[in-house]
């Protein structure tokens, strides 16, 4: 039966939702879908959302990403516009203070009274703060809302040492946040081990040693008795065993408690240890009142994960609309990465069921711990614990959830693959009832149905079933189910770069190099068909440049370049270009600064400092580019490659030459590195930075290649990124001398150039590299592929054949000819019009152009 079938009356059902966390919002989405389905008969329900927080729902699962640069907007799950479009009334900062069950109304803190036909409590939970004297001081905080994170950020700025109370899942995430903020970090746990709920003793031991190796100190079996004034730090924590720990701030993450205050106050049944009691339909003891998510107690159990909360939201929505769906518990298995340590927990991780038997594999040298728990007959998998490597998680979870019969020797599931390999459990072995995405409750059968209804790709499946758009943990499994389903349907799963070449970028690179192919025409003739396109042409141009490094405006190459490369500038929205000369390491003489100022003034260009310590001159018409560059080159500048997928800048702090704290000459190193790698064409742009000490003023850990000075040399960080998807760079090697540093960078970059996909930044490349950072270290440091000599040679060839493209371009009359706007006229483009703003030019808006052209009736831009 469909949800909409039951509501026939024209009268609206008023549904009031208290709380707009992830689960509350999911509930609203279910109702919106329902409203969309019955839209033709007019709206069946009216929804009103009351949120105690100042903003609408956001993603609490990925809250810690706030510290790696995600903003509140990026964490948001919805927008006021979306609610408005769907006629969802909402009130922020509107905590409910009164429920009148007889009159069926609620009252908000502002005194507003709202009538309901159905009331849904989705009030979530609050962090449990142990009743320790002194726990209410200024820098004693919790970790749950965006406001909490803001407070943590402020406290971290005035702290050196931080303690997290609680060694569970959230506690370790909070510890990671403190560590990233640069604090000396401690975790204090009451139990004898970390993550005692999800992980057994053996796993906990390994987890602890891994986390301590990352510089976080772990203290277990510590009961805090008092928080008093510290001697060396702000506070001193006194433990029951007489020991103590000094810290500047404390984060409590000792578990959650259901937010059931409203239920308590207005006589709705709660459990002995809290939580609003609900039945299988999420109904509370009070008529027409439901509870869902972390505030709800089902079968004496609180579900502190998002997936069961979503299921409750679906159940309650269906019940209100007259459908039939019930909540029968949920799987609490989890897989996560804590500070880079992989941890997985499935089902009965502690082997508590009667007759349960365990198999354990521990590999201390490699830091691996794997355990599976099976039933007495060794037929079914009951649970598992994985620490250090969760690659078996998906397979094990499917065994557990679907009751699939175990192989004859269950231990083979966790033992390292021998010569015969592991018994695989491919997508085909899963029953169609198997849950693939537990956040959105998508089964394999749902995915097959979506393909039947016309979906053609993983992307289609994601958008129509929402699979893998929750926590994302199932993405690998989803892909393998989709690939298998597609290939069954005769769809070949292609990695082809485009319709003109049946090869990936990596394969094309290989073909160019091995086949000594020097032009796109011969590449197309030998390996492709058609004319090429905006995808394969620039990709081929980049590969040819990486391998042979010829002048990119050579007649053979010119037609391949994207417009920025063709005109050696960055095209702006009005068709003009910006000009960025190279300022290696950000070091520039006053004389050169004056030249830039003179050029900006003469050609009336808008000038701005870039994020990469250079100066950008905007608003040059295509026909002005050669003469501007002629002036710049005569003054000693060279091209900055800002238009190219290649090395952009090597940012530097001022270093030991001037800075009181610097330990090495970061500017000198940055200039050397920039001069070495300038002009290297790559799958995407590359940015470097060099910091002169651990204060890291150059922000090297957000760059593709980051170098940080130490007392003994240089630490090398790789594959970081700022921008749209920030990623902290990984520490690759420490205390290198300059020669080794350069050698490693040569090898890493050339390996990236060879193997990355088109337009793949190093960060994504590393994430997708099988074996990840360790594999990259093996290739680069240990030479596991026997490649390093070839990689270095290739890089040396590129370095030796460097040319300033602008110098070559202006020296050739044929190249200069390309920069005319018109082949038959010296006029300029009349559509380029500027107006003044803050004493500089900016492109005129459409409206400004209209009025300007009407007034002046002038068809050229030679005004302003």
């Amino acid at each position, binding site marked *: 039966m469909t949800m909409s079938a039951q509501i026939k009356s024209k009268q609206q059902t008023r549904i009031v939702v208290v709380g707009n966390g992830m689960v509350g919002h999911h509930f609203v989405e279910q109702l919106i879908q329902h409203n969309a389905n019955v839209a033709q008969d007019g709206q069946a329900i009216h929804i009103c959302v009351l949120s105690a927080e100042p903003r609408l729902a956001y993603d609490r699962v990925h809250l810690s990403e706030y510290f790696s640069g995600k903003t509140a907007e990026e964490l948001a799950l919805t927008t006021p516009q979306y609610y408005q479009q769907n006629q969802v009334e909402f009130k922020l900062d509107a905590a409910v203070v009164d429920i009148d069950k007889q009159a069926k109304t609620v009252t908000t803190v502002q005194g507003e009274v709202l009538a309901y036909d159905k009331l849904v409590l989705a009030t979530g939970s609050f962090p449990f703060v142990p009743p320790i004297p002194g726990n209410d001081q200024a820098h004693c905080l919790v970790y749950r809302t965006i406001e909490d994170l803001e407070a943590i950020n402020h406290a971290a700025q005035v702290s050196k040492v931080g303690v997290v109370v609680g060694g569970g899942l959230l506690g370790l995430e909070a510890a990671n946040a403190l560590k990233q903020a640069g604090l000396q970090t401690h975790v204090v746990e009451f139990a004898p081990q970390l993550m005692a709920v999800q992980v057994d003793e053996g796993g906990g031991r390994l987890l602890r040693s891994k986390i301590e190796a990352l510089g976080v100190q772990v203290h277990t079996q510590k009961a805090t008795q008092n928080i008093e004034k510290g001697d060396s730090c702000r506070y001193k924590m006194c433990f029951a065993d007489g020991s103590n720990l000094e810290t500047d701030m404390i984060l409590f993450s000792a578990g959650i408690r259901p937010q059931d205050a409203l239920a308590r106050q207005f006589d709705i049944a709660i459990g002995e240890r809290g939580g609003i009691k609900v039945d299988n339909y999420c109904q509370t003891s009070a008529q027409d009142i439901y509870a869902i998510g972390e505030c709800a107690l089902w079968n004496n159990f609180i579900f502190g994960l998002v997936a069961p909360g979503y299921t409750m939201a679906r159940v309650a929505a269906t019940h209100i609309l007259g459908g039939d769906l019930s909540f029968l518990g949920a799987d609490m298995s989890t897989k996560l990465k804590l500070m880079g340590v992989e941890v997985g927990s499935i089902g009965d991780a502690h082997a508590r069921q009667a007759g349960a038997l365990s198999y354990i594999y521990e590999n201390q040298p490699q830091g691996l711990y794997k355990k599976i728990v099976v039933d007495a007959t060794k037929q079914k998998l009951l649970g598992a614990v994985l620490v250090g490597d969760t690659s078996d998680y998906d397979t094990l979870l499917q065994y557990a959830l679907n009751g699939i019969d175990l192989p004859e020797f269950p231990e083979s599931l966790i033992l390292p693959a021998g010569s015969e390999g592991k018994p695989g459990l491919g997508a085909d072995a899963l029953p169609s009832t198997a849950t693939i995405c537990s956040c959105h409750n998508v089964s394999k059968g749902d995915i097959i149905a979506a393909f039947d209804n016309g979906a053609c790709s993983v992307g289609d499946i994601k958008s129509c079933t929402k699979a893998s758009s929750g926590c994302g943990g199932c993405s690998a499994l989803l892909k393998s189910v989709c690939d298998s389903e597609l290939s069954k349907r005769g769809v070949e799963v292609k990695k082809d770069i485009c319709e003109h070449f049946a090869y990936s970028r990596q394969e094309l690179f290989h073909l160019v190099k091995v086949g000594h192919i020097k032009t796109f025409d011969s590449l197309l003739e030998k390996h492709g068909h058609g004319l*090429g*396109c905006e995808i394969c042409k620039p990709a081929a141009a980049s590969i040819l440049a990486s391998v042979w490094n010829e002048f990119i405006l050579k007649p053979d190459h010119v037609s391949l370049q994207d417009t920025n490369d063709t005109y050696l500038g960055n095209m702006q929205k009005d068709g003009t270009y910006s000009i960025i000369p190279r300022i290696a390491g950000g070091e520039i003489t006053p004389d050169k600064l004056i030249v830039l100022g003179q050029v900006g003034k003469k050609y009336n260009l808008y000038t701005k400092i870039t994020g990469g310590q250079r100066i950008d001159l905007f608003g040059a018409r295509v026909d002005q580019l050669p003469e501007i560059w002629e002036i710049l080159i005569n003054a000693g500048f060279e091209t900055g490659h800002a238009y190219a997928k290649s090395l952009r800048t090597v940012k530097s702090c001022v270093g030991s030459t001037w800075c009181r704290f610097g330990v090495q000459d970061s500017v000198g190193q940055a200039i050397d590195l920039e001069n070495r790698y300038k002009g290297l064409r790559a799958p995407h742009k590359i940015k470097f930075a060099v910091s002169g000490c651990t204060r890291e003023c150059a922000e090297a850990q957000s760059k593709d290649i980051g170098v940080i000075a130490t007392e003994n040399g240089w630490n090398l960080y790789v594959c970081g990124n700022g921008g749209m998807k920030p990623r902290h760079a990984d520490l690759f090697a420490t205390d290198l001398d300059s020669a080794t540093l350069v050698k490693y960078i040569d090898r890493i970059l050339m390996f990236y150039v060879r193997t990355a996909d088109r337009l793949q930044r190093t960060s994504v490349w590393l994430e997708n590299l099988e074996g990840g950072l360790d594999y990259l270290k093996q290739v680069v440091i240990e030479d596991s592929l026997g490649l390093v000599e070839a990689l270095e040679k290739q890089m040396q060839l590129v370095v030796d054949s460097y040319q300033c493209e602008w110098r070559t371009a202006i020296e050739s009359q044929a190249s200069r000819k390309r920069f005319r706007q018109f082949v038959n006229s010296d006029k300029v*483009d009349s559509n380029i019009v500027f107006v003044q703003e803050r004493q500089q030019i900016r492109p005129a808006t459409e409206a400004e152009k209209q009025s300007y052209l009407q007034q002046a009736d002038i068809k050229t831009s030679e005004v302003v």
Partner: protein
Amino acid sequence: MTKTANWMTVCQTSDLVDNSGVCALINEQQVALFKLSVREQVQLFAISNWDPIGKANVLYRGLLTSVGETITVASPLYKQRYSLATGQCLDADEIAVRVYPIRIEQQLVQIQIDK
């Protein structure tokens, strides 16, 4: 095309660039000229230089591409593709740019355009 349309000389064939575009100004109209040269086979195309989506005179600076059998130029601003033969935008049904007949007469490039 109206009766008053005439063939006008625009430039020399040597002004064109193989597998790329240049721009000409004719009666205050900007026309993008493309020369496709594959294995000695030469084809010429002329379309309006105005990018109706990016709202700038830039189409001649786009990449020449093929989509199946259709020869197209991709706008350098936002990458929409336009058929060089018909002017139709392949990425937005409701959008097309003007197409001009083009020919070579005695090493001169000519297009047909309203007076």
